[in-house]
């Protein structure tokens, strides 16, 4: 049965030409050493403009025998739905991208085994392929990747009776923690993010797990969560504790998934050799500019992000990141992540391309991100894609502090309050100027003292003469 649409979009092309074939490789890339003939089925490019394709339906299911030239899958491109044929005989061993999901052109969507015996082998390979590509861990750590998946289950099972009581108190109908009560969207999100709902604490009605709980847990679990830990730790003494929860003093409380993830990230950050460079910047010009354009909806956060982004544009090394310890990446875009305190935690919405987007759009975007963050509706790409992080505690009157570098980024800047300060000028006079202290923490494997110093000098110049910001 052909799912080929009889679309007249390409009316004169004969059917055979419209069909595209899978381009399998006989030799696997990466480090998988697989002796048998297991071929990857790639997302084909069905048109010159196609960058990504959506799987409409799998014509064959796992375990089905395929003959060369048979339709395997229907792919929806930007133009039409098309049947995709197999190039080889074999068995469809494993479907990696399910129906309804998208994959970029060239990515593996399924595995083809040559014989039936190899199906299970191909399946086991999928695990490693998927985990290694999504987690960016070398195959050697696959076992490590697998074990955490198992351990929470074990932990949940071995929970003390006290913990079970807590769970049942949270949700009367969860039958002592056996059942997970989560809203449809929460379940959907958890599936997308690969999160186990059993470890998530629900904040919805009757203790139900809702989407924001999943997002919070996922944010905590991802790399991007590090600043949450940083600033959350920094925030606690500020006394802005949101709706103090009722706690039994003297009890020991196990970490939630989010706390676990923060803790893990914080420990992980110790593996990065960081150092700090501080700078004092006069902000009179910035303050008066802010006063002038405040009415147009421009926020101080947007101004700072813009200034930082412009400075980063001149010092690409500060915007780089080092992950493996053997090489580092000059990031192609300047995405400024800004830590925001929200109810029950902290999140880092990202201002994408802050160097290119104009100040007014940036301010609008910021407002939108903050609204979304408050509503806990940020999408993962809106808080995990930062290349440089800003953390500002100036509004609490903090004059200087120190931030922990989020793993996976090159540098984070802690911004203190701008305060009237008595300063002496070069000509021997004294006067009062508004000054703020910034303190950058950076990964010394990539960013050296001179890099940071010259970056900060550029930043100070931009802030002290902010006419470029409004361009």
């Amino acid at each position, binding site marked *: 049965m052909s799912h080929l649409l009889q679309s007249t979009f390409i009316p004169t092309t004969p059917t055979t030409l419209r069909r595209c074939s899978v381009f399998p490789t006989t030799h696997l890339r990466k480090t998988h050493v697989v002796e048998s003939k297991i071929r990857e089925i790639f997302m084909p490019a069905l048109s010159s403009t196609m960058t990504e394709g959506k799987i409409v339906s799998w014509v064959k299911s796992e375990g089905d025998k395929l003959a060369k030239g048979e339709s395997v899958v229907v792919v929806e491109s930007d133009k*039409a739905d098309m049947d995709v044929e197999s190039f080889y005989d074999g068995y469809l061993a494993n479907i990696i991208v399910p129906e*309804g999901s998208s994959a970029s052109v060239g990515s593996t969507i399924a595995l083809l085994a040559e014989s039936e015996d190899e199906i299970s082998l191909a399946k086991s390979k999928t695990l490693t392929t998927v985990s290694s590509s999504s987690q960016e861990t070398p195959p050697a750590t696959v076992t490590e990747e697998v074990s955490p998946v198992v351990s929470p289950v074990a932990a949940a099972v071995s929970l003390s009776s006290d913990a079970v009581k807590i769970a049942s108190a949270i949700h009367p*109908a969860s039958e002592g923690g056996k*059942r997970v009560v989560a*809203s*449809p969207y929460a379940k959907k999100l958890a599936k997308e993010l690969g999160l186990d709902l059993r470890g998530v604490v629900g904040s919805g*009605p*009757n203790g139900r797990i809702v*989407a924001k709980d999943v997002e919070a847990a996922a944010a905590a679990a991802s790399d991007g969560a590090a600043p949450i830990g940083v600033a959350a730790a920094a925030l606690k003494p500020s006394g802005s504790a949101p709706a103090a929860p009722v706690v039994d003093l003297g009890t020991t409380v196990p970490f939630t998934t989010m706390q676990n993830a923060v803790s893990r990230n914080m420990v992980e950050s110790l593996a990065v050799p960081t150092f700090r460079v501080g700078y004092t910047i006069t902000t009179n010009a910035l303050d008066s500019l802010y006063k002038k354009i405040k009415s147009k909806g421009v926020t101080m956060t947007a101004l700072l992000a813009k200034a930082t982004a412009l400075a980063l544009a001149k010092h690409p090394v500060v915007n780089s990141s080092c992950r493996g310890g053997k090489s580092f990446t000059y990031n192609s875009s300047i995405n400024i992540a800004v830590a925001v305190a929200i109810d029950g935690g902290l999140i880092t919405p990202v201002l994408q391309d802050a160097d290119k987007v104009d100040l007014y759009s940036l301010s609008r975007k910021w407002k939108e991100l903050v609204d979304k963050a408050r509503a806990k509706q940020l999408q993962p790409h809106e808080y995990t894609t930062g290349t440089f992080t800003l953390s500002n505690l100036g509004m609490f009157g903090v004059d200087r502090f120190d931030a922990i570098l989020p793993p996976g980024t090159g540098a984070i800047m802690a911004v203190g309050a701008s305060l009237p300060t008595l300063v002496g000028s070069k000509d021997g006079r004294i006067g009062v100027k508004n000054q703020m202290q910034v303190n950058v923490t950076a990964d010394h494997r990539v960013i050296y003292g001179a890099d940071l110093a010259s970056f900060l000098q550029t930043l100070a110049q931009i802030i002290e003469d902010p006419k470029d910001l409004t361009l």
Partner: protein
Amino acid sequence: MQFSISLSLSSPSTICRSDSSSPAAASNGNVNLLNPRSLRFCGLRREAFGLNSSISMRRIESSSVTRRPCSNRILASLSGNGAPSKEFDYDLVIIGAGVGGHGAALHAVEKGLKTAIIEGDVVGGTCVNRGCVPSKALLAVSGRMRELQNEHHMKSFGLQVAAAGYDRQAVADHANNLASKIRSNLTNSMKSLGVDILTGFGSILGPQKVKYGDTVITAKDIIIATGSVPMVPKGIEVDGKTVITSDHALKLEFIPQWIAIVGSGYIGLEFSDVYTALGSEVTFVEALDQLMPGFDPEIGKLAQRVLINPRKIDYHTGVFASKITPAKDGKPVTIELIDAKTKELKDTLEVDAALIATGRAPFTQGLGLENINVQTQRGFVPVDSRMRVIDASGELVPHLYCIGDANGKMMLAHAASAQGISVVEQVTGKDHVLNHLSIPAACFTHPEISMVGLTEPQAREKAEKEGFEIGVAKTSFKANTKALAENEGEGIAKLIYRPDNGEILGVHIFGMHAADLIHEASNAIAMGTRIQDIKYAVHAHPTLSEVIDELFKAAKVKANTSSPAAEPVAA
């Protein structure tokens, strides 16, 4: 199984949109009675089938001459209600002023009959007051919300929209205002033509005798058009607040964070569209093994990809909601799900609200049917293909007809209206059989779903039985200029036809404005137009109707010769 009801009542010649593979389920009280057409859609048409009777079917109108001795009365009838026959108070009495009764009444007046309509509740019936009309108001809101919330969509137009919000009461008022407006339109249209609107609960006392309130009237012909009410399976306690039916939901008194919708047919699907656009999360409970039963499987699959999967919706299929308890004392609504086959308890849901959308049950109690020896079947009034009521001994009851949801043939407002018009044609001396396969149906989700005629499996079954080939043609909205201009390329149109003679068996559309696009196909089926003829019809460019144009052109019909024009395809 929901369809088995209509099946059991229909005469063999009527091909219902029935799913014959729906098994034992019907015996369970908790059957998910989701007639796919159960949410009715109205049209206020005055004349739908004036030209449809072929000459050969027309009776010699001697009988009508005796009834209307004066020829100028026919002219007079165009501007007012007819004069009554001598021995009866009325020529025609219709019990129930819903869309079906309204359609029949208007056509009856046009045909010169002195007509009365009895209504025990409000004029307009379910459709206008608690069905398709107010739901369209809510869906209009949900469509806009959906669009404004779709940042990607807006951005692709170059538009910037700040966070869209809504005022629940104002949305509810819009629905309510629309219902009142349509209700008064309906009332006025009947008043201005001189239809007597009699208020009271109508019941049948005996042959040609009807009672409303304490008054007894006689009529030459009687039409039962009492419609239906939401069906609530046993075990479900409806409190009108947290466990509701469509009647309550349309008032939009609150928007739950999480609502379970029992039944994924038209009603359930439309409400899922409304609720998710307004911020709710939805869980579908469906008794059959797949969502959206009754739709063409391919359309259903695509619709699920667009209307269910990307939205905040999850679902349980193959389960009955055996027990639903409303929220009380701080406890949420609880729903017990049992396996549809094994009847074992499978799961318990706790939600903020539950909407029962398991279909509609005929409203025929207290109608006095026992006085004329008529036995309802599961509440439905048995009728033949001409809507003539059949009594317990299988005989036709003279001068008594039943149209609309009460007969269960096709539970759609416009089907009721068409059946009413068909009955009026018959009582005025012109034989008429309504072809139910030409009646379109639509589901007003975003995007919309519409259909007419057979689904592909039904067509294949029929083809096998009768020994002909079928062809399937499809076109995509992605190839349509207007759809792309609107950034609404998601959609498909599907044509099922006979390649040997070019007959259209069914058309299914999923995409922008599908509900409006279907009529080209339904009219073609009603008129008996063949593909080889209609494919030469010209469509304005660029319009969505070109999707249908492409569809007809994509069909490969072997017959080159045109069929004789306007050969009706009677059921």
